[in-house]
């Protein structure tokens, strides 16, 4: 079980801010593929992964090939707009 978090318009499209997911995925990309297969709202949220960023255990990953093995939480969100 892994906590999956969504922020900004990713959260709005998926409809929940976080959920627990039972997964065999070993990378962020594999997790995305699993989620896309679930329901239309996931497919909509993950349609263009180039518009998305991810963090594994609160560390931003460089790309979606990053491992999630042993991770407690994975988060998906659009590019940040702080400051």
């Amino acid at each position, binding site marked *: 079980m892994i906590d999956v*978090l969504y*922020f*900004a*318009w990713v*959260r709005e499209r998926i409809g929940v801010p976080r959920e627990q997911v039972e997964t065999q995925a070993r990378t962020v990309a594999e997790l995305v593929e699993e989620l896309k297969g679930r329901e239309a709202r996931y497919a909509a949220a993950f349609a263009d992964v180039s518009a998305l960023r991810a*963090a594994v255990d*609160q*560390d*931003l990953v460089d790309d979606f090939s990053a491992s999630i093995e042993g991770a407690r939480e994975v*988060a998906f*969100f*659009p*590019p*940040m*707009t*702080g*400051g």
Partner: protein
Amino acid sequence: MSAGRVIVQEAPFEPADVLRDFARGRGDVGAVVSFTGLVRDADAGPLVTMQIEHYPGMTERAIGRMVETAIRRWSLADCLVIHRHGEMRKGEVIMMVATAARHRADAFAAAEFLMDYLKSRAPFWKKELTEDGAEWVAAKEADEEALRRW
């Protein structure tokens, strides 16, 4: 050198009060730079309110690392970042950065570095509410570009 300070909060704050206490009473600080970010009208037109979402936990962690890097790289005597989340109106303060160093070039460079990183690498997302509706602010290519100079 200092540990710096990172504050993430919903409540409004007054940058003047923060600046008053920042890096004072030291003999080694010649330069203090502050940056204050304010809610302004959207590029699309007059703003009603701005909402800022963030990722509790990751936010403090990500900013903390930026502050550590800045302190080390520019030998800062002190460094502070305060960033709000939640809802705010036009003219309200969103965030503030302050840096203190012996020389002005270090204080300026560190403040700009922190702003560039906060803009694109701290987990905040802005949503602008105008008369025409609500819109998530899109990240700008220029902001990504700005990171490359560091």
